[in-house]
């Protein structure tokens, strides 16, 4: 008997859905051992996570709040992935988008709510877009690797925001904390049901729908798919791949920038140090797990939201260290990525009699 790995000729539809679900259960089982080692009944802990994250208005709203920036940044990253462009810089683009929106909120002198919303949105969109567009331009013009450029520009973006909130934009009444003054009410999103759930979540859903239509129904989406599938063929068909690279990175960064806008206008009401705890990096994993589909991004982001909120409750209820939450998330991701293997390959037992 021998175990061999065989490539599937077509990826199995059943597996595509079953594998991620199964992998989550395997991860839960593994994490269960860790919980047992810490003297906690895993089933109880999981029940707690679920109740905390989706079992109450507060928990559910918190999950959606956490999912909001993840959906937006995830969409941004995934559209570039569709063209085989790797935007690792969503984190920086979130910061720069937030910076643009903050400038409008604090210094533009606008007072009308809708005027402010539209201008803040545009500022975040354009700032995030141009920030990523730099990498797009370099890639299109001189074939500079976009992974390196987008990644390194994260540091510039985060430090630039730090400079602003520690320096010129610091709130004079802020007791020297690294943050700007609070936005006026007109520069804030509406929030709902007495929770922190804000319009940003619905904005994210609208973006998911728009992006789906963009990819599947428009001429540009078609170009992106052709270039992503085979850049040489695209060139041969007369598509301007260089321009497309720039615009796709622009769009990718712009949507991540909107995530920054949503965070400052919907949640934090100011620009501050550490405004994103790594949403931009999680977005890369989300885009990957979602297999680049817009609907997938929404689903995976919600799952991540549950993990984040449930993880918080583990910390509070059982005094588990934050490291445990990270380990737990890591396990889930590990098994999810591992399940990819079963979608493309299968294991087969065969009788191996050899002669000769």
């Amino acid at each position: 008997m021998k175990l061999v790995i065989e490539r599937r000729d077509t990826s199995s539809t059943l597996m595509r859905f079953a594998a991620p679900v199964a992998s989550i259960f395997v991860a839960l089982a593994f994490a269960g051992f860790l919980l047992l080692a810490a003297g906690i009944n895993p089933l109880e802990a999981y029940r707690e996570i679920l109740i905390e994250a989706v079992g109450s208005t507060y928990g559910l709203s918190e999950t959606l709040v956490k999912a909001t920036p993840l959906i937006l940044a995830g969409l941004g990253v995934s559209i570039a992935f569709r063209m085989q462009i790797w935007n690792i810089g969503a984190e920086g683009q979130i910061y720069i988008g937030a910076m643009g929106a903050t400038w409008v909120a604090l210094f533009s002198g606008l007072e009308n709510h809708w005027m402010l919303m539209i201008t803040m949105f545009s500022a975040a969109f354009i700032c995030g877009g141009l920030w990523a567009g730099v990498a797009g331009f370099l890639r299109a013009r001189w074939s500079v690797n976009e992974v390196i450029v987008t990644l390194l520009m994260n540091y510039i973006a985060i430090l630039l925001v730090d400079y602003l909130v520690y320096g010129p934009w610091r709130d004079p009444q802020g007791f020297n904390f690294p943050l700007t003054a609070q936005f006026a009410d007109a520069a804030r999103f509406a929030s709902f049901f007495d929770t922190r759930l804000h319009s940003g979540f619905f904005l994210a859903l609208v973006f998911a729908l728009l992006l789906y239509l963009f990819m599947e129904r428009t001429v540009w989406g078609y170009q992106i798919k052709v270039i992503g599938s085979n850049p040489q063929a695209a060139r041969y068909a007369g598509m301007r791949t260089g321009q497309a690279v720039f615009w796709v990175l622009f769009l990718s960064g712009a949507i991540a920038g909107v995530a920054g806008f949503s965070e400052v206008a919907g949640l934090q009401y100011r620009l501050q140090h550490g405004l994103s705890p790594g949403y931009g990096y999680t977005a890369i994993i989300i885009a990957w797990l979602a297999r680049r589909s817009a609907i997938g991004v929404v689903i995976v982001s919600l799952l991540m939201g549950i993990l984040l909120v449930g993880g918080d409750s583990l910390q509070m209820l059982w005094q588990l260290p934050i490291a445990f939450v990270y380990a737990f998330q890591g396990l889930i991701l590990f098994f999810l990525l591992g399940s990819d293997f079963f979608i493309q390959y299968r294991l087969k037992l065969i009788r191996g009699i050899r002669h000769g």
Partner: protein
Amino acid sequence: MPELLQIEHIRKTFPGVIALDDVSFTVATGEIHTILGENGAGKSTLMNVLTGLYHPDSGKMCLDGTEVHFTSPRDSLACGIGMVHQHFMLVPAHSVFENILLALDKVPLLYNRKQYQQKIQKIIDTFELDLDLDTEVWKLSIGAQQWIELIKLLLRDCRLLILDEPTAVLTPQETDRLFRVLRLLQEQGKSIIFISHKMREVVEISDRVTVLKKGRSISTLDRGSFDREILAGLMIGQDKIPEWQKNLQMSENIVLDIRNLSVRNDRGLADLDQVSLQLKEGEILGIAGIAGNGQKALAEALTGLKPVTRGKIFAGEVDITHSTARSSYISGIAHIPEDRKSIGIAPDLDVADNLIMKSYKNPLFRRGFFQNRGAIRRNAEDKVSRFAIKTGPDGSPVRYLSGGNIQKVIIARELSENPRVLVALYPTRGLDIGSAEYIHKVIVEGAGRGMSTILIAEDLDELLKLSDRIAVMFRGRIIGYADPRRTTREEIGLMMSGERQDQAS
């Protein structure tokens, strides 16, 4: 002759496809056995079963009368079955010796270089191969690279050699040499499974021929009982290969006028050196030449994929020297690229999306920014039935199609807007007779409608059959012209190797 390999009722299915239905044949010791079949007939699957890459669902495989089950190519190699793939498995930057060593099992950490070199040199001398062990592989011709693959198998004492379309990349002279080597191997008692589409070669070299059709071995013929017509008939179910009527009354209208065209490659060397040629309306101009003598550069310059260094290209009155592929296409130049999989299609998209790859901006297929999915689907349905493309289930990626069907998708797309000029690079390479005939028909019918074709091909039979005029390229120049009605294969072969010999122009 004792049977070395017996294949009995092999069946192999993939989800939704029966790749091999019922295949049986035998290979005797010291026999050259050809497997002939259209693309999609199951040849590749069969070879993958023989070399242990796939496991058959049912059926028996016996070696020396004992049943064998291979679980990996390693098993089949251990049993003395080796394969030379169509695409060589070589490291270009390494020397011949290093490449050969890489393929050997159990080379000790500190090996005796001299001993191995002598062993390899002995094989080289036996078969009179012209190969220097210390040369880097990238410097060698395709033919010489093939020798390396053969040597690898011989060093492993393979008794059965499988050659997958070995002549597809060779010049006629290189093919003759390969055949001499194959006969020598045969004398030494090696068995050879030969896969080829080229009838002339199959008839020349084979002891027996087994014809595959739709996953079944429909017949095995002994030497003497087959000729080109019989084999072609079995393969495509047609008794005679049709001869095309050449277009004798050509219009004098010049549709494409190339003047002193030069193209430099990335290393700054001339790929195309002062080439001038004129293409008449409805003419099929064949371009012969050993691969790498500028044919590809010519095609790329014509279709706007490569910048022109010097010279001019006129399409009618329009100067199209400096234009991207897009505007060239609009000026009426269609292009069947050399490497259909790597530049002809977007492999992850479906047939419908691939068919509009060049015309997606056409108002027919869009409503403003949005694509007109209905029109795109109808276009696909129309092309699929008109060009007899065998597609998988709706929406499945093109990469699952067979080579012939991929080529049909490309041709359907390229010819859909009635181009004035078609630049076709090796349009039938690797295709079965049925698909190749179909493509010939499309080109000749196009000529009847006034489409002019620049046909770049390596198969001289194909060029002689289709062309109104043949230009021979050598080292980036057109070294001369030949009249297909008067010339011979040998004459063109000589010109391809650089002997200037103008006949007609």
